[in-house]
């Protein structure tokens, strides 16, 4: 059945086919066939439930239908763009498309429009391709079917939520056909398949929308800063969503860079949407005044004017590396956020002394700024409270533990530092749920 270039079917122990022999009439044989059908129905049921992915669902279905229900199967799905996607045949992974107008007037078209199944007889002595041609619009697939010398072609409509989303074409070879009860059984399977395929399509549609939106809300790829190195880690509370209420951004050019890290109260999608707004406001504010204190003041007013009652905590650092990369001037302002930690090359660790009100609570707040200088080998670490509030079996991770683990990574650079902190926190959590965790670190390049 398969050639070297095609994927092998599942190599599991051959399942006895439910193909009925027309001559089987003893109660014993009928019972045996009934058992096989039930087994197949159960297998299809559990297999279809296992994946929401359309492509994988199609594969799964085809893999189960052949050889247990038919010798050859083709799945047709109606495309949005008025085309038909054809899947399967001898190779379950085969896929091709056909424009809808091509199948106008064919048997397949009839089934798709009417939603009614059709069983066509294939006259082997005469033109054996007639019935096949009207159900199989692709030459390669048609040739495969012809080779099997089938007696019947069964075309089942796949209908879900009131519309026919496709069709399933089944063929049995060697002159065997589809007796009445086999057709009924196939109809049952087709119903199950329709629901699963329809769900997968819905999921895919929604997924695509979500995926596009998620992409815009995901943390950005960090630019390269001449004379400095920057690294970040992000671990949202809902890890599988890949977005959350913590955010960071790095903007600038040449020797003037703005690093921000923030936390929107709350987590999940709603919080993520607000991070998008906060990031945009900050980016806009930067154009007018690059001082962190000014940027936070603008962000604050923008958020206050917004209907949403959520506030945001932010740390904003303006990093200006020296020409030779041996030091950098850093201006820092915070809005309700824990101030950054400096890990000096010599192992000394200290938290910057700066404070300010959370943004989005009261209008027209003044923010203070402090200036620190970092030298080669020093790292400035910004973090969100998901770090110190991480709760494991031994209580909260806490600021003390964080400050205590940092000296060992003095001089190791921002990448190693962020990775080590994340690892330390996640190990502390030991699988428990947590709030969004974000880290952003910058150091001077030699």
């Amino acid at each position, binding site marked *: 059945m398969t050639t070297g270039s095609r994927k092998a079917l599942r190599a599991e122990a051959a399942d006895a086919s439910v193909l009925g022999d027309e001559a089987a009439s003893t109660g014993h044989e009928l019972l045996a066939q009934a058992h096989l059908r039930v087994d197949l129905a159960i297998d299809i049921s559990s297999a279809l439930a296992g994946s929401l992915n359309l492509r994988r669902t199609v594969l799964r279905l085809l893999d189960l239908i052949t050889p247990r229900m038919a010798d050859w199967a083709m799945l047709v799905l109606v495309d949005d763009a008025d085309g038909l996607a054809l899947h399967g045949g001898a190779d379950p992974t085969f896929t091709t498309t056909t424009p809808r107008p091509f199948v106008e007037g064919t048997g397949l078209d009839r089934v798709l429009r009417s939603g009614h199944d059709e069983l066509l007889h294939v006259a082997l002595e005469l033109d054996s391709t007639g019935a096949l041609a009207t159900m199989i619009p692709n030459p390669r697939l048609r040739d495969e079917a012809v080779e099997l010398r089938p007696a019947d072609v069964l075309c089942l409509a796949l209908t879900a939520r009131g519309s026919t989303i496709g069709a399933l074409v089944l063929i049995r070879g060697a002159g065997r056909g589809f007796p009445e009860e086999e057709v009924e059984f196939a109809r049952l399977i087709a119903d199950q398949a329709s629901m699963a395929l329809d769900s997968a399509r819905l999921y895919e549609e929604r997924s695509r929308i979500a995926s596009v939106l998620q992409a815009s809300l995901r943390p950005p790829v960090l630019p390269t800063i001449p004379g400095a190195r920057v690294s970040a880690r992000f671990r949202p509370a809902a890890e599988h969503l890949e977005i959350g209420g913590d955010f960071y951004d790095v903007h600038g050019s040449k020797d003037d860079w703005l690093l921000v890290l923030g*936390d929107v*109260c*709350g*987590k999940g999608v709603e919080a993520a949407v607000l991070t998008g707004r906060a990031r945009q406001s900050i980016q806009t504010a930067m154009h007018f005044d690059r001082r962190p204190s000014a940027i936070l003041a603008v962000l604050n007013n923008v958020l206050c004017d917004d209907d949403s*009652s*959520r*506030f945001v*905590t932010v740390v904003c650092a303006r990093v200006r590396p020296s020409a030779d990369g041996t030091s950098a001037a850093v201006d820092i302002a915070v*809005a*309700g*956020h*824990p101030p950054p930690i400096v890990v000096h090359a010599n192992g000394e660790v200290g938290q910057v002394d700066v*404070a*300010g*009100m*959370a943004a989005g*609570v*009261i209008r027209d707040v003044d923010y203070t700024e402090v200036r620190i200088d970092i030298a080669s080998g020093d790292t400035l670490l910004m973090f969100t*409270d998901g770090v110190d*509030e991480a*709760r494991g079996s031994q209580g*909260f991770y806490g600021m003390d533990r964080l400050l205590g683990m940092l000296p060992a990574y003095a001089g190791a650079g921002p990448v190693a530092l962020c990775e080590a902190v994340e690892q330390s926190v996640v190990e502390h959590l*030991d*699988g*428990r*749920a*947590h*709030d969004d965790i974000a880290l952003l670190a910058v150091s001077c390049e030699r």
Partner: protein
Amino acid sequence: MDASNSTAGRLQLFVTEDESGSPVVTARGDIDITTVEQLHASLLAQAEAPRTPSDIVLDLSGVEFFGSVALDPMLRTRDVLSTHQARLHVVVTDQIHRSLNILGLTHLFVLHSDLRDAVDALRTA
């Protein structure tokens, strides 16, 4: 790995009245994203209750985990009370005081280190 071992805690809330009839909302346990709605309901019910406008005391001395989500209901309550020239008194632990400091929101409430002080403050108000 095991979602049932999560940090979602339990929150106990009860409301009493001090001698002058001002409501005292006492919270014990964790205020996080799963329990904050309870706090919200409780506080706002007191703030919007039809009675002679009075200050409210929120006793957080028994709170083990104070998530920043707690600020939402606290700020909202403060806003409602301020329309009646009333204030929200909050009994805080050192930990909570520190959190409020970092958030820069300490001046929006009247903070006390124990319930006694808060109730006394209500009396002299």
